[in-house]
């Protein structure tokens, strides 16, 4: 039965390979110089994230002394300490490098989880409609009334503060964005001839959902990966800044909290600028890449 559906003239494959999607994205990224630069920046940070702990000049938790045995308190940038040291004598440059890994793990896992949830919920709500759809859309409405940061910190107080609970809190509060968009998409795709054809041919719901509808919404779902990645990094930074992140994990957000708590935003401007700049560069690179993807999906935008 299901093989019959796949052989139908209006199969989903036609939709899927309208001039090779991957090739289109690549050509768009190459043409859009900003997206190309963003991609380069992200690749650079990805490499740092992978090899970070091996190339960091010091252990980011070590309290360093100078040659006289004095603790290095807020040392200025120098050849040994490219970005100086913190108020308790830790090497800022090493913290920055090691923090990259945490940012990429948290951002990556949160983004994938968020998009996966959104795909499943979007498919169910948009395809079955009826009470499932009502229920899910009501849940999305409710989720929008629960702002990420305040609810996340409450959750973290109760669940304990670790990297995994931070990721869980972020995912629990951010699936709403992609879900709403994907559900709308599924709703319109479900009315298309190839889906109706597959149904007439006797394909199971499961097969229709994953074999026919999923490929058509995948491009839009993929857009939410960089968006979710960026938002997760910013959310983690905010949570750590408020003091509810994993206290053992060196993240850019925790670095910002430390400099703020130390009251050193005046004396050691490099300490406050460096982690914030890293977050900004990584997250906005994700956004620029997203914009290039959107241009592929919506060619009308390209002419601008």
């Amino acid at each position, binding site marked *: 039965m299901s093989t019959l559906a796949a052989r139908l003239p209006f199969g989903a494959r036609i939709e899927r390979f309208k001039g090779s999607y991957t090739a289109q994205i690549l050509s768009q990224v190459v043409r859009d110089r900003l997206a190309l630069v963003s991609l380069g920046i992200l690749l650079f940070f990805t490499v740092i994230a992978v090899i970070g702990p091996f190339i960091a000049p010091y252990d980011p938790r070590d309290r360093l002394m100078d040659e006289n045995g004095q603790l290095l308190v807020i040392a200025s940038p120098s050849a040994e300490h490219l970005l100086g040291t913190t108020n308790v004598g830790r090497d800022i440059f090493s913290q920055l490098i090691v923090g990259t890994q945490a940012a990429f793990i948290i951002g990556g896992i949160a983004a994938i989880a968020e998009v996966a949830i959104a795909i499943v919920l979007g498919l169910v709500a948009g395809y079955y409609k009826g009470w499932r759809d009502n229920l899910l859309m009501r849940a999305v409405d409710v989720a929008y009334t629960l*702002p990420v940061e305040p*609810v996340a910190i409450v959750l973290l107080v*109760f669940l304990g503060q670790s990297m995994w609970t931070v990721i869980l809190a972020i995912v629990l509060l951010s699936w709403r964005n992609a879900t709403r968009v994907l559900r709308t998409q599924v709703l319109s795709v479900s009315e298309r001839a190839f889906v109706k054809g597959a149904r007439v041919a006797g394909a199971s719901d499961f097969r229709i959902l994953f074999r026919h509808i999923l490929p058509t919404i995948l491009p839009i779902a993929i857009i939410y990966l960089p968006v979710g990645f960026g938002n997760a990094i910013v959310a983690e930074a905010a949570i750590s800044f408020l003091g509810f992140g994993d206290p053992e994990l060196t993240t850019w957000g925790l670095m910002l909290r430390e400099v703020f708590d130390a009251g050193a935003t005046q004396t050691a401007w490099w300490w406050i600028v460096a982690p914030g700049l890293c977050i900004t560069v990584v997250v906005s690179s994700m956004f620029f890449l997203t914009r290039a993807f959107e241009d592929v999906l919506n060619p009308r935008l390209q002419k601008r």
Partner: protein
Amino acid sequence: MYLARRLFSILVTLLIALTIVFVLFRLLPGDPASALLGPLSSQEARDNLTESLGLDKPMLEQYGIYLGNLVQLDLGTSFSQRLPVMDVVWPAFVNSLILVLATFIVAYGLGALLGVVLAWYRGTRFEAIGSFAALALRGAPTFWIAILLVSLFALNLKWLPAAGMTSIQNTGEVSLSTYLSWDFVKHLILPVAAASIYALGLPLLLVRNSMLDVIGTPYVELARAKGLSQKSVMFKHAARNAMLPAVTASAQFIAWAMGGLVVVENVFSWPGLGTTIVDALEVRDYQLAQGALASIAALVVSLMLIADLVTAYLDPRVKLS
């Protein structure tokens, strides 16, 4: 009819949100009383506290009492402040509301204006830089921008106060004249600026895009053919319709604003709901934290209702669908 339907659905949303807040605060592992009183407390003190908090009753009864108290605006008592939670939360609610509304006005006013201007200069270097900056700034953490602004304008240049809502320290007395004073406005500038730098990106990009859509339509062509000035065509004819997507997106702003403002309030020690909830959680004052979170949900819901009504007023098609 439309109003009644929206009101009902938003009340249901609020009820569910408040239920989630209730459940959230019962997730706490272990015994809340010993968490509050510390490990050295006596069994009797713990039992007394458990009883006074009503935590010895069955969950469903607790939920009923919770909702009943909420209707009467009774949020319990705060341990850390030794005051009814309502007395702590209400002024914070007002302070947060002022911050959100001021940010909304600045971000959406400025964002929409810049969006129109960028659409006007489409294809130029100016437009390219403007769009780039708007998107790049959306990647910057709001609290980081806030700290940078404090360092520069408050600590370095000493133009504006670094923290708080007024210069008079903690008299506890906040009256209408407080909010109308120049001193208050000076304290408001930096927090609003920090939040707006992030928030104006969305209306800016939306208005710019919809302006570009609108510019090609016949009615704008007609306005131009009538010989009206470029400025009049842009602002009187095109911009008016191009605003709608930004108005619709204001719900998104509200959802972001209450979260984003938690961090901004913390940087500036702004006595709002964000500061309240963080302070309450730090000292494990769950009653206060629960009241603050419920207030945040209520604030978001009421702002969304207002946004809905404004959208319906501006775009009568919404009412029909």
